[in-house]
């Protein structure tokens, strides 16, 4: 019995040692041909029939996965050596140590084809800047909203607001419930149409609150990056429970002053078009 246990431990030790070696090759970037894949496979084959428990089978699967990675690295290694980029790393390192900074810089400049990209200030961009300036509250008024002593670089979480007695959990849940009801009433809708309104400040506030609905799985976001479309739709309680309730999700959606302005302009144009059509 004891002998059986010892032989099992030996098996494990040998596999762990090989696994560790494979991982070292992967992380250190050493020669993947140092791993004798054939021998490793023979070792695994030898033990394969003796595996019984789930742990043993998982270890076996792990070993096969590591071997697959090593074979992939060997393929890259061969490709790299046969490519025109291949130079002996030791030789190049020696050469680099011997060269003066000027020589290195000269070599770089001779191989450099810089991207040509010019910054420009257009009248339209200036106008946007001016509009932003007009919409911006004076600094002393804004300072009341964002008190100075907050030096922390970490983002302020809901818990921080509750702890500071700036917001109560009940109040927050109430606002979220209202938002959820609004989304249910409006159904599937363009995300911008849902969060943006006449004021940029309240739009940002709504976007912040909406992020909680999405993270908690109470609303769905559908993103089409090519068309730059984002739709939001409510999730029913059943969907929420059947789906991934309890698991938080993170989807970055940008809310910017420019995007809000563009949305407002679009709404204005739509309204004008509606008036013209009803007039005619």
């Amino acid at each position, binding site marked *: 019995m004891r002998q059986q246990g010892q032989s099992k431990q030996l098996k494990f030790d040998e596999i762990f040692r090989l696994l560790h070696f494979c991982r070292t090759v992967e992380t250190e970037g050493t020669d993947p041909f140092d791993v004798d894949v054939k021998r490793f496979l023979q070792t695994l084959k030898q033990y394969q029939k003796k595996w019984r428990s789930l742990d043993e089978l998982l270890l076996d699967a792990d070993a096969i996965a590591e071997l697959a990675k090593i074979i992939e690295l060997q393929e890259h290694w061969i490709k790299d050596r046969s490519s025109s980029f291949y130079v002996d790393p030791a030789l190049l390192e020696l050469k680099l140590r011997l060269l003066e900074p000027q020589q290195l810089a000269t070599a770089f400049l001779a191989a*450099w*084809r810089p991207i040509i*990209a010019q910054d420009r200030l257009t009248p339209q961009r200036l106008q946007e800047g001016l509009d932003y300036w007009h919409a911006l509250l004076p600094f002393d008024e804004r300072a009341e909203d964002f008190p100075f002593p907050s030096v922390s670089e970490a983002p302020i979480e809901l818990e921080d607001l509750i702890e500071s007695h700036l917001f109560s959990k009940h109040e927050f849940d109430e606002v979220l419930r209202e938002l959820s009801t609004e989304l249910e009433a409006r159904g599937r809708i363009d995300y911008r149409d849902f969060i943006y309104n006449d004021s940029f400040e309240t739009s940002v506030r709504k976007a912040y609150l909406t992020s909680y609905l999405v993270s908690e799985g109470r609303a769905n976001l559908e993103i089409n990056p090519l068309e730059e479309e984002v739709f939001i739709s409510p999730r029913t309680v059943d969907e929420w429970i059947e789906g991934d309730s309890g698991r938080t999700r993170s989807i970055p959606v940008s809310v910017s002053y420019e995007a809000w302005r563009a949305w407002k302009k679009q709404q204005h144009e739509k309204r004008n078009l509606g008036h013209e059509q009803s007039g005619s």
Partner: protein
Amino acid sequence: MEEAAAREEESRTRAERKLKKAAQLLLFRQHRVPGVKGWELKRALGEDYLAVLELLNAALDNLGMEVKRISEEGSEGAEQEEKAERDRFVVVLKSPAVEKASGERIDTIAMLSATLAYIISKQGKASRKAVEEFLSAKFPKQRIFFALDRFIKQGYLGEDNNVLYIGWRTRAEVDRKTLLDLILAT
């Protein structure tokens, strides 16, 4: 006959307009990162944006410049069309015609040059620690940390789990084979 000539004229005007728009989009910065994504060009120029870029390339050729397509995954050059929408397009100089095209300090460029050559020789990736140690033979540690962070921010290097690799901007701007040849020949 006249109608055909008018149609031809109209199509030429449209092509010229698209060409100008493509040049403006590519030569003037739209975002913090230089270059324009394929899907942005498609939206601005239409379905035939790749053909417009070919025309632009021919026009830029006379000025010693070219449109280069860079994939985020690392490959370069023409591949299937749907992939082009995810790729980044930039205009680069075809040859190093200008003597000084950057305000960078010479030791910063030397650090970049050495780092790139070192990483290329290590099959395109090396641990940050190894690069830092290698550079520390000639530069103070503090400057190395600062320079590496800057190269990453500029897109010359990428970093994943403390491993440095060749960034998209190096693939767009640096002729890696020439760099290695020049270093070995110096």
